[in-house]
C-alpha cells in the first residue's frame, strides 16, 4: 500500500493543481460590451421619447426605480413614474434630446452609471408658453436577470432657468 501511494501521489498532486488552477474560470470582463449596451439603451430611449410611447419609455426603468425631477417629490415605482410622465409626453410641444457623456460599469458588471446632457422643450403648466431648457442628468443602472440594463435612479437639473423657446 505504501508503494502504491508513493507512486500515485505525484499524479494525484498534479491533478489537484490542474483542478485548482483551471476551475472556476474567472468571470470575463464584459465592461466594454456593457458600456455599449447602456449607450445604445439611451439612444433608443431618445427614440422612445420622440415617439411619445409611454410603455416603451418606462421599459427603461427597473420596477423599483426612482425618478428625481426638479420641483417634484421623488417618484418611486413604475406606476408613479408612468403617472408623472403621462402629461409631459402628451404635451404637443414636448421634445427631449439626450447626449450621453460618460458611462462606467462596475467590475462585477451589475451596477453602472451614466452622465449626460439634455435639451428639453415643453409648455409651461401655468403660462402655457413653450419653454426650453438645457441641463444635465445622472442615471444609475442595474443589470437585470435577462442581461438587460435598467435604470434604478434618474436625476436631472437645468443649467439655467427655462427660457421661452425661439
Amino acid at each position, binding site marked *: 500500500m505504501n508503494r502504491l501511494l508513493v507512486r500515485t501521489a505525484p499524479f*494525484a498532486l498534479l491533478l489537484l493543481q490542474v*483542478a485548482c488552477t483551471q476551475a472556476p474560470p474567472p468571470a470575463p470582463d464584459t465592461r466594454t460590451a456593457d458600456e455599449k449596451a447602456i449607450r445604445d439603451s439611451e439612444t433608443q430611449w431618445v427614440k422612445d421619447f420622440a415617439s411619445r410611447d409611454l410603455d416603451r419609455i418606462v421599459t427603461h426603468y427597473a420596477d423599483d426605480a*426612482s425618478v428625481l425631477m426638479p*420641483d417634484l417629490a421623488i417618484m418611486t415605482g413604475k406606476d408613479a413614474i408612468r403617472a408623472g410622465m403621462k402629461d409631459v409626453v402628451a404635451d404637443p410641444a414636448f421634445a427631449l434630446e439626450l447626449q450621453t457623456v460618460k458611462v462606467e460599469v*462596475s*467590475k462585477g458588471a451589475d451596477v453602472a*452609471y451614466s*452622465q449626460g446632457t439634455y435639451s428639453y422643450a415643453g409648455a409651461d403648466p401655468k403660462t402655457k408658453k413653450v419653454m426650453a431648457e438645457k441641463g444635465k442628468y445622472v442615471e444609475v443602472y442595474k443589470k437585470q436577470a435577462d442581461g438587460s440594463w435598467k435604470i434604478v435612479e434618474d436625476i436631472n*437639473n437645468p443649467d439655467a432657468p427655462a427660457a421661452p423657446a425661439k
Partner: protein
Amino acid sequence: MNRWCLKTAPLVLVLSQLACTQAPPAAPDTRAADEKAIKDVEAAWLKDIQAKDVEKSISHYTDDASFLLPEMPIQTGKDAVRATYKALMADPNLAVDFSSTKIEVAKSGDFGYTQGVYTMTTTDAKTKKPVTEKGKYLTFFKKQADGSWQAVEDMLNADAPATPVK
C-alpha cells in the same frame, strides 16, 4: 498497474473535486461593510459642510468628480468643485442638512451610490433674504486604491422652489 489505478482513482477524483469546490476562494462579499463605510463618509461630509470647511468638504470627491447643481453648468474636477463650495460657503446664511434614504454597493465592491433628502438655507440673490428649500440628492461613489470611498457624481434638485425662512 491496472490494480493501482483502480484502487487510487476514486481517491484522486475525490481529492480533485474537493480542490475544485474549495479553491480558489470566492472574493468575500464586503457589501455590508461598504454600505456602512459610505454611510460614515456621508456623516463626516455633513459635519465638514456644517463646519464650512471647504478643503475637508471637497476631500470626499475624486479628482475627476462632477458636482451637478441646479442652474449652473456641470462642475468637473477638484478646482471647479472647490470654487463652487467656496462660493456656497461664503454665504452667511448657509445651513445644510442631509441624510441618505438608500445605500447600495456593487457586488464587486468598487461602486456604490446613495439616494437621500436635504434641507438647505441660502441667501436669495434678488431679495437678499434667507430662503429654505427641501430636495433630494443622488451621489455615486467609487472605492479608491486605499479602500476609502469618494464621490464621482454628486447631484441634487429641490422638491419645490425655495421659500422665505419664517
